[in-house]
């Protein structure tokens, strides 16, 4: 049974709060760039950057990062198509890079992202922003900005809908597709970003 955890209005409020926190923790967004993790983490940094611009008139450079070639679970879950890595204007060297993703789960994507980031350059510091933290970490990774903490079970998936792709903003909790509820492997990039 699908349950809506956040509707469009909730998501907008959460993004507003994250934008404020971002400004606060980065000293007004100084030397800060946002990097969305492909593919479902790409719309969120644009939304964050737009809110930051609305609040403080600061333009944060936005880029994208494809982590596929750095994943450690390709062997378990098969090859996936590669997506584009787009360096933010001005690069990442010496910057404060905020990695942005929709759902934080095992932490393996973030680990791969840290490796992939090393190929782009050497940031001064790296932070992590996620819309939903659903727990069940398999690695010592913690987000600096969390939209919503959602205790979940492995038998569930969290699906983040964004208006650019799905026509509306929402966070849904769904039962995991049968057969994929094995511990730590229930995320599926191919199945429309269900995590």
């Amino acid at each position: 049974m699908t349950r809506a955890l956040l509707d469009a209005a909730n998501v907008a409020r959460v993004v507003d709060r994250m934008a404020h926190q971002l400004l606060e923790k980065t000293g007004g967004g100084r030397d800060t760039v946002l990097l969305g993790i492909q593919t479902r983490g790409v719309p969120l940094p644009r939304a964050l950057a737009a809110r930051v611009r609305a609040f403080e008139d600061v333009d944060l450079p936005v880029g994208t990062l494809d982590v596929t070639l750095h994943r450690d679970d390709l062997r378990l879950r098969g090859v996936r198509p590669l997506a584009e890595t787009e360096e933010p204007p001005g690069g990442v060297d010496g910057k404060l890079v905020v990695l942005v993703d929709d759902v934080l789960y095992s932490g393996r994507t973030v680990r791969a992202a840290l490796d992939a980031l090393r190929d782009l350059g050497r940031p001064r510091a790296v932070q992590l922003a996620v819309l939903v933290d659903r727990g069940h970490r398999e690695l010592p990774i913690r987000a600096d900005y969390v939209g919503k903490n959602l205790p979940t079970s492995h038998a569930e998936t969290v699906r983040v809908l964004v208006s650019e792709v799905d026509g509306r903003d929402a966070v849904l909790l769904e039962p995991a597709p049968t057969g994929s509820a094995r511990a730590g492997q229930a995320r599926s990039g191919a199945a429309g970003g269900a995590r």
Partner: protein
Amino acid sequence: MRHLLSAADLGRDDALAVLDTAERMESAIAGREVKKLPTLRGRTVVNLFFEDSTRTRTSFELAAKRLSADVVTFSAKGSSVSKGESLKDTALTLEAMGSDAVVVRHSMSGAPHRLAGWVRGSVVNAGDGTHEHPTQALLDAYTMRRRLGRVDGLRVTIVGDVLHSRVARSNVLLLATLGAEVTLVAPPTLLPVGVEAWPAAVSYDLDASLPKADAVMMLRVQRERMGDSYFPSAREYSRRYGLDRRRLALLPDDAIVMHAGPMNRGMEIAAEVADDPRRSTIVEQVSNGVSVRMAVLYLLLGGPSPRDPSLLGAPSPRDPALLGGGAGTVPRRRRA
């Protein structure tokens, strides 16, 4: 997809997936100090070259290394093959050493197909006899797409020794899959029997087909495969089917000139045409080859391996029926 043996193995979506992946690979590496990705760490790729090769062998080797695979390159000279070991025994040896992929070049058409029945890993055809060379066709299509923006609807003229050319065969198959219109131009003696069944038009007149070509691909005259004389003289061949400065001027303004190499300068292509910086893509084809082969290796080897015992319930190593007969190269008397 487990093996890449023929360009015909690739459907339109598969072929486009390889080209798209190659594009990503290229940008993932471009401009980086350390040209290395961790993707195939722990995988072993064996380059098995029974025939001479410069660019294909180094290209595959570089592609595998850039993806962090372990690479063993093995050429017939200096191996037990020169002591008369058969293709099959060589394959079983490599299998026992645990290779995840075998990249094979062989002078016998069909050798990679046989090999694919003997090993558990993936087999990539890097050129077999006069049969096929699928990664060359992929890198040619990739080069056309980079230069001309698309492959679909392009008019491609392939000129020269079609009879002996695995490059031509793979290109015709792949280009047809991708929606290009191919015209083969060659002397009648250098066209294979049954060419009319290929998805390509045939012409004997190069001058007439150049003005409507978006890309012209010159084939090497393969003297080493020619027992008899297929044309009166090199000079006559070059006069009728060579691409010189005059013919270059017949091409549309943005058309490109391709050659898979190695070239016979002055024979099928004039030196000044080969070196034309605006039209010739010959050097580009070589660098594109590495990206395309990275894509192929990633797509074949990146996922679960038939060697991972946890994923497959105890796979049977080989068909025991195959263990009896040794096909492949004819065992010769042991020399050493």
